[in-house]
């Protein structure tokens, strides 16, 4: 018997949705961390009951939460209440909520500014964690993508975090600028066949790859064409919204850019547009079928100035050919008066034999398809605006 757990981050808390493998009847728990923004929750592939959550607030900053029992209870993995904040030797202990940019000459390159919206230099300042990506091998190792864009890593279950400063310091950082949502590192992909390879994406800088476990990085944006920047084919400056990979073929990547859907067959060294017959190729999410590396999903959004579906019809588009040829999936989705958005981390697929596809909307609905997108039903309809959706499947 299989079970499914969907982790939903919203503007006002986290929700955990559970079902059996039929994915028809759902239990809903939450809100967890009520009133806080939950940008992302994700479980460890090694220990699925080990969950990490990014809890943030414009008032109170960043909190990292961890659960070791599948979300029943949560704690901050840093210094426990009542424990001293210094070691017996008097050294300050690390803290789970502390993300400090590395400007040491030994491990990073002191980097002072990126570009602001108007092109003026602006100092780097930590704001929040957008994405948490647990290691494929170790439940205590997690990568965190943050705003202002940088990549952090913990190897002690979230107690302390260190920046992988080679990304921010590799040379193009001073040209990065924020997208409308801020200058965020929102996508982290760990290659299951090459453990030293990490791919990240930043709005609005582009995609980057490390082949040495995050020590050194290079931009991988050849083939991207962005009319809204001074040089449309620049090395960096592209507003990449999301990147997805299928674990059986890690060199095959799919990208939803601000405008354009693209694919790469060489781990990002070059990209080709595959928007094909999409009614609009603006959007945020993109994901890949669990068992079919060439089957992909997007949710087209009308435009960069009108963040809702075209004609008020919520349609997921599926390509079974790795792009270019797309079909609209509408069964169970509202086909009139629908003006929600689907944000970049708000789609996920499960690994059951009949692949489940899930996405959440800014209108608070979380839709599930237990049959690869053929039919859809809302698990919940009235949550706060959904920021992220992840799914875990258990046998």
């Amino acid at each position, binding site marked *: 018997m299989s079970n499914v757990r969907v982790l939903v981050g919203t503007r006002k808390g986290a929700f955990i949705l559970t079902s059996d493998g039929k994915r028809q009847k759902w239990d809903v728990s939450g809100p967890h961390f009520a009133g806080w923004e939950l940008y992302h929750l994700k479980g460890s592939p090694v220990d699925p009951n080990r969950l990490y959550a990014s809890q943030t607030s414009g008032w109170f900053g960043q909190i990292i939460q961890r659960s070791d029992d599948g979300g029943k209870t949560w704690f901050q993995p840093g210094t426990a209440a009542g424990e001293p904040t210094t070691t017996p030797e008097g050294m300050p202990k690390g803290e789970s909520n502390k993300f*400090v940019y590395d400007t040491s000459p030994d491990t990073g390159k002191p980097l002072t500014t990126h570009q602001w919206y108007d092109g003026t230099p602006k100092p780097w300042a930590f704001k929040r964690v957008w994405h948490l990506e647990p290691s494929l091998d170790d439940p205590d190792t997690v990568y965190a993508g943050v705003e202002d864009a940088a990549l952090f890593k913990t190897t002690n279950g979230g107690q302390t975090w260190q920046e992988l400063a080679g990304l921010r310091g590799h040379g193009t950082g001073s040209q990065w600028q924020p997208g409308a949502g801020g200058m965020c590192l929102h996508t982290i992909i760990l290659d299951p066949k090459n453990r030293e390879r990490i791919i990240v994406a930043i709005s609005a800088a582009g995609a980057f790859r490390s082949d040495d476990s995050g020590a050194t990085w290079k931009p991988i944006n050849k083939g991207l064409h962005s009319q809204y920047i001074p040089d449309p084919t620049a090395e960096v400056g592209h507003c990449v919204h999301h990147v997805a990979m299928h674990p059986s073929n890690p060199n095959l990547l799919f990208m939803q850019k601000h405008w354009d859907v693209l694919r790469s067959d060489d781990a990002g060294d070059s990209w080709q547009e595959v928007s094909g017959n999409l009614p609009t190729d603006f959007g945020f999410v993109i994901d890949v079928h669990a068992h079919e590396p060439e089957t992909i999903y997007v949710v087209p959004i009308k435009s960069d100035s009108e963040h809702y579906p075209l004609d008020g019809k919520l349609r997921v588009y599926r390509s079974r050919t790795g792009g270019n040829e797309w079909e609209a999936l509408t069964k169970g989705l509202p086909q009139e008066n629908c003006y929600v958005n689907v944000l970049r981390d708000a789609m996920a697929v499960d690994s059951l034999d009949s692949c489940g596809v899930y996405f959440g909307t800014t209108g608070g609905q979380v839709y599930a398809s237990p049959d690869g997108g053929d039919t859809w039903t809302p698990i919940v309809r009235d949550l706060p605006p959904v920021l992220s959706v992840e799914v875990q499947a258990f046998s």
Partner: protein
Amino acid sequence: MPAHLRTLAGVKGDVTVEFDGEVTRRSILDALEKQYPMLRGTIREHVSGERRPFLRFFACNEDVTHESPDAPLPQEIASGAEPFYIIGAIAGG
């Protein structure tokens, strides 16, 4: 403290901290964060130590938000007769 910070710290109502030395905003917050380490970074930014913009401080009906963090606070605060308020701005939704 604001409700969200009380939830984080696992406390209800007022919080009492005891320490030696002069009673200032800095010394109160230092003692608070020592007693409740999960609050570190939520009231003052981790690195700069600056107050988060949406938080304000009141003592004996006076707004001391923009006073020096090392300015001595009234004796009523030091003795515990009056509370030191950490207030969240009324903003957002």
